[in-house]
C-alpha cells in the first residue's frame, strides 16, 4: 500500500483535521473503486469466457433446474440487466436501501443494504453485523497477546543478544513464522481440546457465552494459535529494531546523562524501534478485522473470515462484496490511524 499524502508534520489542529478529511474523502473514492472492480471481476471475466447471464444464473439453482428455471433466476437476480444498471442498484442499496420480493410479500432492506445472498436469499448486512463481534474478539484478543509477548520477547532478546535465551527464542520464532496456521490450529485442537480437554472444541460460538470467562475459554486456543504466528515475527522485528536503535547516539547520550536503564530502554530505545512495528500492527489488525480466514475456518468460528469462505465457495457476489467492503474499510481506517500515530510515537517525524 503506498501513500500519496505527505506525513503530518505540524501540530496545528486545523492541519490535522484537514488531513483527516482529505483522507476520508479519498477513502470513500477508494471503496467505490473496490466495489466497481469486484463487480467487474464477477461479471465481466466470465463474459470474456463466453458465459451468458443464464450460465451465471445456473450456479444458484437446484440440481435439476431446466433452462426456463435458470432464465427465471437470471432475471430475478438481475443478471439480464446491463452491468451499469446492476451496479447502480447496488450503490443505491448502500445508500437508500432495497426492496426484496420473498414470495408472499415484499420487504424493505434498509440502508446500508448489501443486497441478498444469491444462494440463500438472506440479507447480507445483518449477517456481517452478527459476525463482526466474533472476528473482533478474535483479532483484538490475539493482537493484545502477540503485542505483549512478541515485543516483550524481542526486547529481552535484543538486550541479551547472543545468549542462549536469545537464540532459543529466535528459533521458536522462526518455527512460529513458518508453520501454517491450519496446521498449528488442527494440532492444538487435537492435543489441547480433544486429548487433554483443557480448551473448548472447535465450532463453538464465543458470542453465545453468558459471561466473560466462558467467552475467553472459547477463544483462548484460537487466540494463542493466532498470536503465536504474529508474535514470532513481531519478536524478530522488535529485536532487529532494538539492536539498531540501542546503538544510536541519542541512546548513548541518555545513558551518559545518568538515566535509569529501564528509562533508556523503554522511553528512548523501544520508542524509536516501535515505528515499523506500528506500521505492521496497523496493517495486521486491519486485515484481521476483515476476517481471519484461516483461523476462523480451522476453529469453525462464525466470523467474517468464515463468511468469506462461504461466499467464495458459492460464488455468492453480494456476500463477497459485503466482506470485501468490510475488510477494505478496516484496512483503510487502520492505515489512517497508523499514519496519525506516527506523529505521536516517533519523535523524528515530529521534528521534521
Amino acid at each position, binding site marked *: 500500500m503506498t501513500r500519496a499524502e505527505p506525513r503530518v508534520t505540524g501540530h496545528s489542529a486545523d492541519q490535522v483535521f484537514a488531513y483527516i478529511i482529505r483522507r476520508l474523502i479519498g477513502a470513500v473514492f477508494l471503496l467505490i473503486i473496490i466495489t466497481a472492480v469486484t463487480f467487474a471481476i464477477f461479471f465481466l471475466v466470465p463474459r470474456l469466457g463466453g458465459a451468458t447471464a443464464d450460465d451465471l444464473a445456473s450456479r444458484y439453482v*437446484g440440481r435439476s433446474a431446466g*433452462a426456463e*428455471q435458470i432464465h427465471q433466476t437470471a432475471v430475478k437476480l438481475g443478471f439480464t440487466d446491463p452491468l451499469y444498471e446492476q451496479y447502480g442498484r447496488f450503490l443505491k442499496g448502500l445508500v437508500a436501501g432495497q426492496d426484496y420480493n420473498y414470495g408472499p410479500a415484499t420487504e424493505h432492506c434498509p440502508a446500508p443494504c448489501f443486497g441478498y445472498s444469491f444462494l440463500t436469499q438472506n440479507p447480507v448486512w445483518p449477517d456481517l453485523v452478527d459476525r463482526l463481534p466474533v472476528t473482533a474478539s478474535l483479532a483484538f484478543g490475539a493482537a493484545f497477546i502477540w503485542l505483549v509477548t512478541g515485543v516483550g520477547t524481542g526486547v529481552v532478546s535484543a538486550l541479551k543478544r547472543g545468549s542462549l535465551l536469545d537464540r532459543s527464542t529466535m528459533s521458536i520464532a522462526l518455527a512460529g513464522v513458518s508453520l501454517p496456521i*491450519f496446521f498449528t490450529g*488442527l494440532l492444538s485442537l487435537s492435543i489441547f481440546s*480433544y486429548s487433554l480437554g483443557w480448551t473448548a472444541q472447535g465450532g463453538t460460538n464465543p458470542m453465545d457465552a453468558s459471561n466473560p470467562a466462558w467467552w475467553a475459554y472459547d477463544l483462548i486456543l484460537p487466540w494463542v494459535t493466532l498470536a503465536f504466528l504474529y508474535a514470532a515475527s513481531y519478536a524478530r522485528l522488535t529485536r532487529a529494531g532494538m539492536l539498531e536503535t540501542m546503538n544510536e547516539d541519542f541512546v548513548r547520550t541518555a545513558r551518559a546523562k545518568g538515566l535509569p536503564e529501564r528509562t533508556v530502554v523503554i522511553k528512548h530505545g523501544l520508542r524509536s524501534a516501535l515505528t515499523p512495528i506500528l506500521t*505492521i500492527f496497523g496493517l495486521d489488525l486491519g486485515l484481521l478485522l476483515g476476517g481471519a*480466514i484461516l483461523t476462523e475456518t480451522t476453529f469453525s468460528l462464525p466470523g467474517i473470515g468464515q463468511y468469506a*469462505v462461504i461466499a467464495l465457495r458459492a460464488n455468492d457476489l453480494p456476500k463477497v462484496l459485503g466482506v470485501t467492503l468490510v475488510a477494505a474499510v478496516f484496512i483503510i481506517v487502520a492505515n489512517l490511524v497508523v499514519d496519525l500515530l506516527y506523529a505521536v510515537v516517533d519523535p523524528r517525524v515530529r521534528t521534521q
Partner: protein
Amino acid sequence: MLRTKKGVQHEMRRKRITTATAVSAVIALSLAACGGNGGNGGNSDGGGSSTAAAQNAAVTKVFNPSDVKGGTLRMAHPAFWDSVDPGDTYFGMSWNFVRTYGRSLLAFKSAPGDEGSKLVGDLAVGPGTPTDDAKTWTYKLRPGVKFEDGTPVTSKDVKYGVARSLDKATLPNGYTYFNDFLLDIPKDYSVYKDKSLTGVAKAIETPDDQTIVFHLNKSFSSFDYFAMLPATMPVPQARDTGAKYKEHVLSTGPYKFESYQLDKQMTLVRNDQYDPATDPDTGRKPLPDKITVELNVAAADIDNRLLAGDLDVDIVGTGLQPSSQGKVLGQADLKNRTDNADVARLNYTQLNSDVPPLNNINCRKAILYAADHEGYQRAYGGSVGGSIATNLMPALVPGAEKFDTYGFETDKNGNVEKAKAALAECGQPNGFDLNVAYRTERTKEKAVAESLQQSLKKVGINVTTKPFPESDYTKLYVGKPDYAKNNKLGMSVFSWGADWADGFGFLSQIVDSRVIRATGGNSNLGVKLPEVDKMIDKALVTTDQAAREKIWVDIDKAVMDSAMILPGVHAKSLLYRPENLTNVFVNNGFNMYDYTVLGTTKK
C-alpha cells in the same frame, strides 16, 4: 540498517501470498467433505440387533438398541445444505433429517436392511391407490395429526405444500418431479401470484380433509416415491413466508425448531403436539430431548470430534474423510465402530458416441475390455470405497440383477486380447486418440482418469486427461452436448447417486435420451438408445412391481450391451458410530444412519 516501511511491507506482502496459497489449501481440505465415497459389495437382509462393537454391526442390524429417552443429539455439517424448507431441498441427508420435523405422505420405513427401502404410510395411512392407468393417485390421510401450534393438518395443507414447491423462482433448490408430472401446471407457476390455487386445481384435488388426489399428465407407476418426497409435508398457507419459511418451518414431526441461525447452527426440541399414536408404521423413535446441528464446521474437525466423543453424528452421512479413514481402519477398537454401508451410487465413465471413433460400438467395447477395473476401484479407496461394478444398478435396488457382460470379474485388470479384437472390428487396429474429462477438485476422479490412461495405452488408445471445474462440469462442459462434441470429450468420469433406490430413481436421469437438454446441466452425458426410451415408457405404466423391476433390469442390460457406459464402482461409505449412540442402523432408503431413531447415552 534501519528497516524501512517499504522493506517491511515487502516482507508482509510475501507473507500475504503464502497466506493466500494456504487459504486454498484449507478450502480444498474442507471441500473434500462433499465427495461421495464407496465401499465393497454386500447385500442386506433385515432383522436382528447387537450390542458388541464390531465392524458393520449397524449395516443390516440395529446396533445398541434402546428405548431410553433423554440427552442431546449433537450433529455437525461442514457447510450447510440447500434449505431446511421441506419444499426446497434436494440432498439425501436433508430428506433423512427432515423427517424429524416433518411428516410426508409416505416414508421409508425406519428399519435396518431391506425393510428400510420399503415405503410405508407416514401422514397417509398407506401407499396410494392408482387409477386411470396410473395417471391418478389417491391417498388417505391419518386423522389427529397436528402442527406444532395445535392446528389440525388437513389435505389442503399437503396440497399447498406441493403447490408452493412448484415455484422455482422463490424456492429454487428442489427437484422438478412435481413440475414435470402434475397435470396442466401453468408456466412459471407461483402460489404467491395465485393465492386461490386455481392453477393447480386440475392437478391436485382435496375432496375432503382426509383425502388428496393427484392427477398426472402421463402414467407413472412409481408415484409412491414422489409421495415420499419432503414437498408433500404439509404447510399452512396462512403461515407460509416463501423464501423466508426456512427461518421457522412449522413442524408436524416429533421435533420442532427452537432456533435456526443461517450458516451457523440450529436447535430442535420436542414437539408436544406430535402424537405417536398417529405414527404407527414408520418406526420413528424420538429418543433425545434435543437435537443440535452445527453448520460450517471444518471437515477435519468433525472427524476429530467424532473420534473424541465430542460429536455424535456427521450429518452429511457420506462417511469419514479419507485422511481419517486410514487412522480408523488401522486401529482395531476404532475399526469396530465403523460401518461400511452400501450406497445407491454408481461411479462410472460415460462414453460419448458423438465423438468419433466412439460412434462405432466396437470401439466402445474395446474400452470396456481394456479398462483396469481394480485400478478403478483403487482410485475410490479400494474395497472400502466400493465394489467393482459389472452393470449399472447396484444390489440394493430392489429387483436389481448382477450380470457381467464383458467379464469384469474374471479380467479384473482388463483383457488386452479381447480389446484388440474389438479394435480390429471397428477399424482401429492400432488404437486411436481420446480425451477423458474429470472434475478437477475430485482427486478420485483424477485417479480414475490416470488409471484409464495407463490401461488403455496397452492397446494403443492414447488418452489425454482434461480437468474441468466441478461447479460447471455438467452445466457448461461435459453436460453440454455441443461443448462435449466440439471439444472431443470422448470419455467423462462421473458419478450418479440415485434420488431413491428404484429403477426410475437410479436409471432414468442417466439413460433416458429425452432428458438431454441442449442448454446443458445434464446428468445423462450421452446415452441415446431409442429402444431404451421405449422400455422406460413401458416401465412407467407398469404398476405391477415385479414386472416393472424386470423391465429396469432389461434396460440395464440394453445399456451395457450398447457399451455406452463403463461402470466403475458401486460405492460404499465408511460411517463411524461413536460409543454413546444408541439404536444405530443404516437405512437403505438413504444409505446412512437413520436420523429418526438415534439416541444417546450422554445426558
